[in-house]
Structure formats: structure tokens, C-alpha cells
């Protein structure tokens, strides 16, 4: 009875149960109605229940399955790419497209293990200029360019 539990499967099952429970809670105030005249809550609740049961079954199977560790997650690319998106989302409304793009490229560039400082900086300047020219000047999207 050694070395059990398929961790990736168990994690996925836990996700399903959590999502199902959340959806069920959110849909609980909605009117369910009858099968002939369904209310807005009928299908969401049904699906949420199904997902929870499915997740429980999958979780049970994972507990009994042979040992499998969770695969290694490369944190550097994940964190730096996410970080660059966060920077962009925060900076865009207050600092405009040019600075937000520059910050994004600088930050995202370091997600690669073979990043080079000069090359990355030049690339950030070029891409920021390119983004402004392409999206604001050429495609005239309504995006603020500068903080002022």
C-alpha cells in the first residue's frame, strides 16, 4: 500500500470540486423553475452539481492510483510573464500605452534565461514605439499614449 496518490489528478479534481461549489453557491439565489419552464438557475446548478460529483469521483480515483508527483513548474517564466501583464494592466490607465509597453517588455524579457540587458532595452524601446505607431496612429484605437 505504499506510494499512492496521483497528485496532478488530485489537484485537478480539487479544482473541479472548488469551482463547482463556488458556482453552486453563486447560483443558489437564482430561480430554478421546472423542467418545462426552466428558470435562470436550472442549468447552472445542474452543471455545478455534475462538476462537483465528477471532481469527487476523479479525486477518489486519484487517491487510489499509483504515485505521480506534480510536475515541476518553471517559476521564472510564469512569474515574470504574469508580472509583466500586471504591470501593463496597472500602468496603462495611469501612465499610457508608451510607458506601459516599455515596462511590459523589460519585465517579460527577463522571463527568458538567456536575456541580455542591452538587447532587451533596445527591443523594449522599439516595441513601445511600434505599438504606439501601429495601434494609436495607424489603427487609431482609443488608447491613451502618455500620462498627461
Amino acid at each position, binding site marked *: 500500500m505504499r506510494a499512492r496518490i496521483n497528485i496532478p489528478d488530485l489537484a485537478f479534481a480539487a479544482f473541479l470540486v472548488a469551482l463547482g461549489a463556488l458556482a453552486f453557491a453563486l447560483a443558489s439565489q437564482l430561480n430554478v423553475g421546472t*423542467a418545462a419552464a426552466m428558470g435562470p438557475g436550472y442549468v447552472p446548478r445542474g452543471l455545478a452539481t455534475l462538476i462537483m460529483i465528477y471532481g469527487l469521483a476523479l479525486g477518489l480515483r486519484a487517491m487510489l492510483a499509483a504515485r505521480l508527483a506534480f510536475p515541476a513548474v518553471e517559476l521564472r517564466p510564469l512569474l515574470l510573464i504574469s508580472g509583466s501583464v500586471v504591470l501593463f494592466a496597472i500602468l496603462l490607465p495611469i501612465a499610457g500605452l508608451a510607458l506601459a509597453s516599455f515596462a511590459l517588455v523589460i519585465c517579460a524579457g527577463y*522571463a527568458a534565461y538567456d536575456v541580455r540587458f542591452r538587447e532587451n532595452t533596445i527591443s523594449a524601446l522599439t516595441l513601445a514605439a511600434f505599438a504606439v505607431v501601429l495601434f494609436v496612429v495607424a489603427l487609431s484605437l482609443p488608447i491613451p499614449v502618455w500620462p498627461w
Partner: protein
Amino acid sequence: MDLIANLATGFAVSLTPANLGFCFLGALIGTLVGVLPGIAPITTIAILLPFTFSLPPSSSLIMLAGIFYGAQYGGSTTAILVNVPGESSSIVTCLDGHQMAKQGRAGPALAIAAIASFVAGTIATVVIATASAPLTWFALKFNAAEYFSLMVLGLTGSVVLAHGAPEKAIAMVLVGLLLGLVGIDVNSGSPRMTMDLADLGDGIGFVPIAIGMFGIAELAVTLGRPQDRSLLSVKLRDLWPSWAEIRQCIPAMLRGTAIGSILGVLPGGGAALSSFAAYGVEKKTSRNPERFGRGAIEGVAAPEAANNAGAQTSFIPLLTLGIPGNAIMALMVGAMMIQGIQPGPQVMVNQPGLFWGVITSMWLGNVMLIVLNLPMIGLWVALLRVPFRLMFPAIVLFCCIGTYSAGNTVFDIWVMLLFGVLGVFFYKVGAEPAPFVLGFVLGPMMEENFRRAMYISRGDPLVFVQRPISAVLLVMAVILLIILVLPSIRAKREEVFQE
């Protein structure tokens, strides 16, 4: 002849200078992303989707379609020269294509890939044109129950053909269906599962989900893997294959086209599956199968014909029934809905110009691609030398700007990020994003038809098996599921995906 008249209607739309331009642009971008490993056509279509909002519907669809089949051309270039498939549909092209390149026959390999793609593209265009009219006529008889059952079949197909564990694909479909329901209920007007966020009133945006899962998540995963790109320095002196080689390839091309055309139509099918199947068939039917894997030219022609045919015929269910067969077609549904077009059989009846325009543009696009590809191979090879570390920050930037411009709200960027991180999680636990996206797009349509069918039947669920067409569709779905659990076939399926 109806067909001729229809094609004439189509060419009247697709031959306008603007649409020719968009077709060319789509094919060019498609080739570009096809050549570059690490950027899938689905990512590109997701990123470019918001920028097509301001275009007329026909131009928008013509361009997006061009990206899809253009990528099938481009993917083979990388496969042959670098032994890295530019796209999943070019994996088998690596086997014999790269061997040919090593023997100094990169030119003929590239040329035969382009010729096979062109032949397949031409035939597939005719197949779409002839199959669409009867299918549409058939689909116009569909009622709510039939639509519901058809979508069940489509989702089942996406589960069967998903890579990885089918039980996880089923879960992903369910999650997609559930998340598709977030937003204001069209029947009652009450907000559902919105957590009182005004931004979720119209539901979770399709664009941020698609870009997050196929753009951000893909990048985060790809960057974690070591990059290997040893580029063969090829001289493209002898570009053209000999007549004997072309003649040798004709049966392979035709078989590949037939296989691709059939598999492309199947729900969940498409380009990648078609190329695997075509390669397998060539190897089995060949008189000397030992040549395969050592630079057999048919081993390039057949899968290249199949993936291009499959890419194009996967538009059939979308254009006639309004049902996307794979994740890329789900994006096309998104593109159509954003343009205010409800996909379905009505499109052909009410907007013949759009319908036939898109179909004829596919053939024009194939002509452009063959012109575009052969003389420009040198340029594509040069592009492959651009290091990935310079390319991916630009992709992240385009993901963000694209998402923002779709709804002009920063909220969508946060949604994109959430689904990007979720996408990495799904990748790590071995759950495929494609069934999820399909479920997400079909969710609202399925619920709508389910509710309507149940309303008409006064709450009797037997309606789905009492109506003959609906019953047949459901039986097909059940058969697919049974095939999936049969151990012998399951082993075979894993073998196919392993190769």
C-alpha cells in the same frame, strides 16, 4: 449550374481589391506564425480577433481563415528545415521531410509540400462548395432538440480527439459550459454568477479567455522548456522535384486529400489528426514501406495534402450548421458573433455573398500561398534565426493590447491573466484547453436550445430521442464514447498520439 452561380457570387466578393488584400495579409501572417515554432495559429487568431472588429464581416473572416490555412503551409517549412514542427499538424512532415533536407534535397521537399498543399486546397474548396448546399438545406430542418443533440455530438467528438486523458477532457467541456453561462440570462434578464461585477454582465469575455489560455499560458510553458533549433544551412539550388517524383506523389496527394477532407469535417478533427492518418495510410499501402522515415517524398506529400484539406473542410460544420468542430473554429464563431452574425444555416441563405466569398477566398489564398512560399523561403529561413527571447515579449505585448482593445477595459486584461495562469495549471495536470474553449462557446447556445426543446416538450426529456435526427445524433455520440472506453481502441489511440 447552381455551383457555378454560387462560386460567381463568391468571387464577386473575394476578388474585390480590399478583400484580396485581407486574404493576402491573412495568408502572409499565417505563413509567418506557421514558420515560427512556439506561436500557434490559434494564438494568432485570438490575438488578432479584436483588431478585426472594425472590418466588414467578409473581410474579417477571409483574413482569419487565411491565417489558419496559411499556417499549414508555413509549418512544413520549419519541419523540413529545422526538424521542429512549426505546428502540431506538421509533426509527421518532420519524419521524411527533414531526412530529405539532410540528403541535400530540401528544395524538392519544400516544393512538394507546397504543391501538395495547393492541390489539396483546391480540391477541398470544391468539396466545401458542393457539400455545403445540401448540408445547409438539411440543417434548416433542425429544431431546438436537433441542435442540442448536434452540439452534444460535437463536444463528444472534441473529447475523443483531444490529446491526453479523455476523462479530463470531459471535465474541461463541463467547466467550459458552466463558465459560458456567466452573465445576464437572456430569458429572464437576471445576472447569473457575476459576483456583482458589472464587467461580467455580458459574460466572461471570449477574447481574454482565448488569449490567456492559448497565448500567455503557452508562452509560460514554452519558455520553461529548453529551446533547440539547429538550423540546417540549406542551399536552395535544386528547388524543383523531378517529373518522376511528382508523378510518384500524385496518388499520395489524392489519398491525403481524401483523408483530410473526411477527418476535417468530423467534430474535434482537423489538420493535425488528418496528417497523422494520411502518413499512416501511405506507409501501410506502400510497396516498400522501409523507405519511409528515410526521406520518402510521398511521406511529405501525403500529410501536407491532408493537413491542408483538413484545415479547410473543418469550416464545413461551422459554415453550414454553425457548430465549431475544433477550438480554432470556436474562435471563428466568436469572430462571427462579434460581427453580429449568428453562425448557422441561415448565413448561407441570408448572406450568400459572405458565405461564398469566404469559400472562394480559400482557393485564392491557396494560389497566393504557393506564390508566396516558394520564392520567399529564404526570407522565412532568415526569420527562424531571430532568437525566441526577442520574440516572446512582443507576443505578450500584443496579447495585452489585443485584449484591452476588444472591450476597452483593463478588467479584461486581468481576466486574461487569470486564464493564463489557469492554463498553465491545466497544462501541468494534463487537461487540454481545446475542449474547454469549445464548451465555453457552445454553452449559451446549448442551454438556449435545451431550454427551448424542453419547453416545447413540456418538460419531457424523451424529446431528444423521439425526434429521429436528434436520436441519430445522440446515438452517434454514444458510439463515440463507447469506442473511447474500449480498451483495444484506447491503446491504439494512445499509440497514434505517441508517434
